[in-house]
């Protein structure tokens, strides 16, 4: 049997776990691991400029590919810088393994230089964590970490390794475990047959059904099954922010995103429905609005791999614990077996209603905002131009704020894993490093980060990483010189008292900044230039392009749920309510 040091085992175990790319940043406690990394060629390391970005990049890689993302950081500040990235992945159930160096065992608890209790600090935001105390345990622990991260409801796993455990002078036999079995961790995959049958019968008996699907469908690669089920039944589909792309957005049966900034037709259909079929969604507060007023007439069928998500906020009448793919497959086969068909007349009437809502107040049937023109560029029109230029087929990452909502509303995602954003934690600074992760996974694809001048400055140092590894992402900066969503809330709730949401004259020249990093910068100030500049941006196939687009400062995101109301209570624009 081969004998390896702890540091070598870490890297070998990564290779055996199928890892090809690690995002990270070296430091004292991780140096033995970094030395082992230097002496091999199987695992490529990408050096970021801040550990938060390492985790976001691994996260973007994972969201776009479905594989587990990997980050490597040192102890203390390296570990704490990774925390925001880990929390981001945790809230959106993204499978990651984050390996952190730790001070030598003998120094743990001594307040040593760069010591942080990483297992303790990360505890509430990880699926699980390990502190490895012996070189002999590294391989099995790493194997467990990948297994836990990627199965059940996915999530980030931290592996904290003290420096003495990776000591190059201490070699132990290396063995990669052929399989992992844990008595305390056995996630449920298949749904309970009886419950699945009940779910199908209820779904088929619906007169005003709606399919409400979330990030779980994307994570479990169940879009195909979801689409087939929806189309076989001719039921309307709405997606959560995290679920966009699970059902083709350009299809007639798609009625838009639901929730706080969801479409009128999706929110109203939810409110008036008699059966809600929730798949891989968790009735988040950004969806439900006031829980007491939530969908009063609906029978709720809820499929989720995580039992804690079921009946947490809204009680499910028919809960099914299982993976989206296996449960949907089973439902499809039960539908085949049954003679029951949906009530065609009722469904037809339901569609007539929905189509009326769409036509009257939908954002896709007519433009619901003032037109762009001259030096007024509406942010919505930027997203439409981006959609047109990329033919709707780009990977779009985003940061957090108005730009994120405009992208979610106006870029119509027809495929899963194309829309990559921090939905749960809402992390500004996510977009650019996530785009790097996507571009690494798909070197030939068009990858755009839709951002704002606020968010982009939270991880802008990564423009340098893009240079080093030739990651030609496109940055679409909706620059309104303000923290737009904060300002929107201040307009709506604080009589336009813009407390700390304006940059005044302090913003950098983003074009010059991009050029300083060796990239292309393009500034757009007039609407008539937008389309052409967008074309120019994507014509630079192998370059990072920073498009700084000055958008209308006064624009708000609509529709918007009225706080304390039902799902269907919406502001449709500054003057009109639903």
């Amino acid at each position, binding site marked *: 049997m081969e004998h390896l040091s702890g540091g070598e085992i870490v890297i070998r175990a990564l290779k055996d776990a199928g890892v090809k790319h690690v995002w990270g940043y070296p430091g004292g406690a991780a140096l033995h691991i970094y030395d082992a990394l230097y002496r091999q060629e199987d695992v490529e390391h990408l050096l970021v400029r801040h550990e938060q970005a390492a985790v976001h990049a691994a996260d973007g890689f994972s969201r776009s590919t479905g594989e587990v993302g990997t980050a490597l950081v040192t102890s203390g500040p390296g570990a704490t810088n990774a925390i925001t990235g880990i929390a981001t992945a945790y809230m959106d159930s993204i499978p990651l393994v984050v390996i952190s160096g730790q001070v030598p065992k003998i120094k743990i608890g001594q307040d040593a230089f760069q010591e942080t209790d990483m297992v303790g600090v990360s505890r509430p935001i990880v699926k699980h964590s390990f*502190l490895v105390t012996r070189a002999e345990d590294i391989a099995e622990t790493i194997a467990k970490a990948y297994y836990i991260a990627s199965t059940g409801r996915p999530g980030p796993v931290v592996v904290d390794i003290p420096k003495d455990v990776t000591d190059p002078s201490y070699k132990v036999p290396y063995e990669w475990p052929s399989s992992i079995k844990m008595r305390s961790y056995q996630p449920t995959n298949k749904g309970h047959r009886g419950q699945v049958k009940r779910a199908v019968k209820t779904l088929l008996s619906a007169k005003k059904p709606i399919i409400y699907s979330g990030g779980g469908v994307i994570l479990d690669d169940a879009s195909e099954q979801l689409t087939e089920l929806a189309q076989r039944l001719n039921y309307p589909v709405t997606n959560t922010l995290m679920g966009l792309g699970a059902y083709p957005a350009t299809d007639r049966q798609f009625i838009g995103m639901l929730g706080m900034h969801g479409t009128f037709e999706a929110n109203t259909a939810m409110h008036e429905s008699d059966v809600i079929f929730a798949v891989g969604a968790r009735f988040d507060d950004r969806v439900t609005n006031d829980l007491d007023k939530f969908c009063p007439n609906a029978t709720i069928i809820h499929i989720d791999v*995580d*039992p804690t998500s079921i009946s947490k906020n809204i009680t499910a009448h028919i809960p099914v614990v299982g993976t989206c793919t296996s449960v949907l497959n089973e439902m499809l086969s039960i539908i085949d077996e049954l003679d029951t068909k949906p009530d065609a007349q009722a469904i037809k009437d339901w569609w007539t209603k929905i189509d009326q809502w769409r036509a009257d107040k939908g954002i896709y049937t007519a433009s619901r905002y003032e037109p762009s023109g001259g030096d007024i560029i509406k942010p919505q029109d930027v997203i439409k131009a981006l959609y047109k230029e990329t033919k709707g087929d780009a990977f779009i990452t985003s940061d957090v704020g108005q730009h994120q909502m405009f992208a979610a509303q106006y870029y119509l995602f027809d495929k899963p894993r194309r829309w990559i954003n921090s939905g749960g934690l809402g992390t500004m600074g996510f977009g650019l490093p996530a785009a790097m992760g996507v571009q690494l996974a798909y070197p030939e694809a068009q990858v755009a980060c839709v951002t704002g001048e606020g968010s982009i400055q939270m991880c802008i140092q990564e423009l340098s990483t893009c240079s080093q590894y030739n990651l030609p992402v496109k940055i679409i900066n909706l620059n309104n010189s303000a923290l737009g969503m904060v300002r929107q809330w201040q307009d709506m709730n604080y009589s336009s008292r813009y407390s700390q949401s304006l940059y005044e004259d302090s913003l950098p020249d983003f074009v010059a900044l991009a050029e300083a990093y060796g990239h292309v910068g393009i500034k757009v100030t007039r609407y008539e230039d937008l389309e052409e500049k967008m074309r120019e941006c994507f014509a630079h196939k192998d370059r990072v392009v920073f498009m700084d687009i000055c958008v209308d400062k006064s624009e708000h995101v609509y529709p918007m749920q009225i706080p304390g109301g039902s799902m269907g209570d919406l502001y449709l624009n500054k003057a009109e309510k639903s």
Partner: protein
Amino acid sequence: MKRIISILLENESGALSRVVGLFAQRGYNIDTLTVAPTDDDTLSRLTLTTQGDDQMAEQIVKQLHKLIDTIKVVDLTVGSHIERELMLVKIKASEPEVRAELKSSVEIFRGHVVDVTASTYTVQLTGDSDKLDAFIDAVREIGIMEVVRSGVSGISRGDKFLRV
């Protein structure tokens, strides 16, 4: 309503902090908590009591079960069960009549005097939490110096058992 929740946990470092952390993180209260290894030293048995309605108890059980180190979780209050708590109480007892009164109270509650000095009695008592509360009320006026309670341990009645 009071809930007694029993957990079989991997006897790993940090496992207890995950359970306690979960309660803090999700805004649940822990009223009592006891934990010790079982006959199988790779396993810890943890019993905790908390307050909550059925829905909350169900969510707590599910959340506990989701922890990777958790092997089994049961809400003992759902079925018939035995609940025991151990208490040690140090009480001022210098006057002869006080000592006599205390001894008779201890007998009534089926406790034991386990340590005696010229001025104190130390009493050991086991039972469910209500009984221990009642004893404290009974001797409060005499002068309690110190109370130590183990927290509730519980086990279900009959054939049901919690084991790997």
